[in-house]
């Protein structure tokens, strides 16, 4: 691969990553996933930068990627704390939940075409209590438990 091809390929890859992240940011509703997608956009930027750095034979691009990673970590720290706080307040991670603040006179957008939520019977695994040896009679349905795990 010559330099130009390498550059073009990486720029395209960066663009694709950025675009996929953008699409995810725009269409996903889970706050955490949106944030993940934003990080993906930064990955696209990083790929572009590294490609340019190689093409220009210059370190600055790689240094910049390091800074981007650092800042992404900062944003993740604040952002995740924030998301947690939001979740504690609303008990949901749905971004569409947050539309109280809007222009007066506008109506709240409601979900359309909500698919049926599958309410399947779930049996959650139970771990055996640690530390002490379980007595025989403590777990009446040992068999089923084991079968389900």
């Amino acid at each position, binding site marked *: 691969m010559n330099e130009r091809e390498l550059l073009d390929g990486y720029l395209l890859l960066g*663009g694709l990553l950025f675009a996929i992240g953008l699409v995810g940011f*725009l269409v996903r509703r889970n706050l955490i996933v949106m944030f993940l997608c934003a990080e993906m956009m930064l990955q696209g930027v990083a790929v572009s930068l590294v490609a340019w750095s*190689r093409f220009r034979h210059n370190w600055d691009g790689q240094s910049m990627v390091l800074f981007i990673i650092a800042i992404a970590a900062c944003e993740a720290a604040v952002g995740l704390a924030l998301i947690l706080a939001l979740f504690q307040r609303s008990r949901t991670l749905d971004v569409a939940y947050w539309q109280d603040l809007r222009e007066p006179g506008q109506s709240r957008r409601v979900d359309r075409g909500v698919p049926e939520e599958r309410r399947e019977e779930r049996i959650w695994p139970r771990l055996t209590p640690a530390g002490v040896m379980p007595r025989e009679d403590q777990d009446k349905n040992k068999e089923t438990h084991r079968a389900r795990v």
Partner: protein
Amino acid sequence: MIAWDQPATWAVVLFAIGLGLMVPNGSMRRRAIGAVVGLASLACFSAAFPVSGPWLDRAVFRILALIAVGSAAASVSMRNAVYAAVWFAICLLGVAGLFLYQGAQFLGVVTVVVYAGAIVVTFLFVIMLAQPTGQMVYDRITWGGEAKILGVGAGALLVAIVTGLLTTDRPPDDRDRVASAIAAWDARTAPSRSDGIAGAEWYLVDARADDGGLRVVLRNDLPPVLLDRLRAALPHELESGDAPLAAAARKQLDIEFLSIEDNVLHPNHVALLGRNLYGRHLISVEIAGTVLLAALVGAIAVAMRARRAERPYEGEAA
């Protein structure tokens, strides 16, 4: 205006369709179709951007690219946030591989360690903390039909723009002209030589003409014999293509050598990167430290505030 005969165009269109089908809003089958279309789109992209070189190189590149882009698309389309995070981690691995392929070893490692190792794990942690029971309806739909169209359209538009820029014929600059001259010379004289240059772009780093003459920078892994021949032939070769360039070359032709290992592929890669980081970017490093501190303080304050019982805003009846 839109060149429908180009694979790049189809690639973009398929990209849009595939992503549109993949993002969560529909049935499993639709998403599977989307994935297939997406793969087709990637194939079109690879057709639109052919690469040269040894097949192993090409294959590695293609595989890494496929991992990165494919897992990114998968991450976006997963209904479950945990899966999305995991796919994102895989995507990061692909990106790290791409970094390594570019010679950015340190960045590759850092991406794996910091991103995949720390940030994504934190994400997962938060997802675990914040995930209520049951499957989330909102993860399975978008907030409206037009949202999907607009969002996917925006992404596709961006890809279209980047692709368009990359495939448009850029006006040739000095470097391109010199490269084509070298390539022409190579093609003409290669039969009489035993060693071809095999892609002038690979060797030509830079070429720049100014009032002082023409300065050409080549990578220094050319055979010396070939170099002398090239030096002799270049002005003549340029004569047919670009008169001012040839005039500059006749006036003075400097050919310098540059080892790519001197730079981003240097054996002491990390040392040089560190030198750059703590030299040119010293102040930036300091400021980045400040940003980290500020983020730390902010995150702790937010977390502690969130832990406290909700207190109504000043005076507002709760």
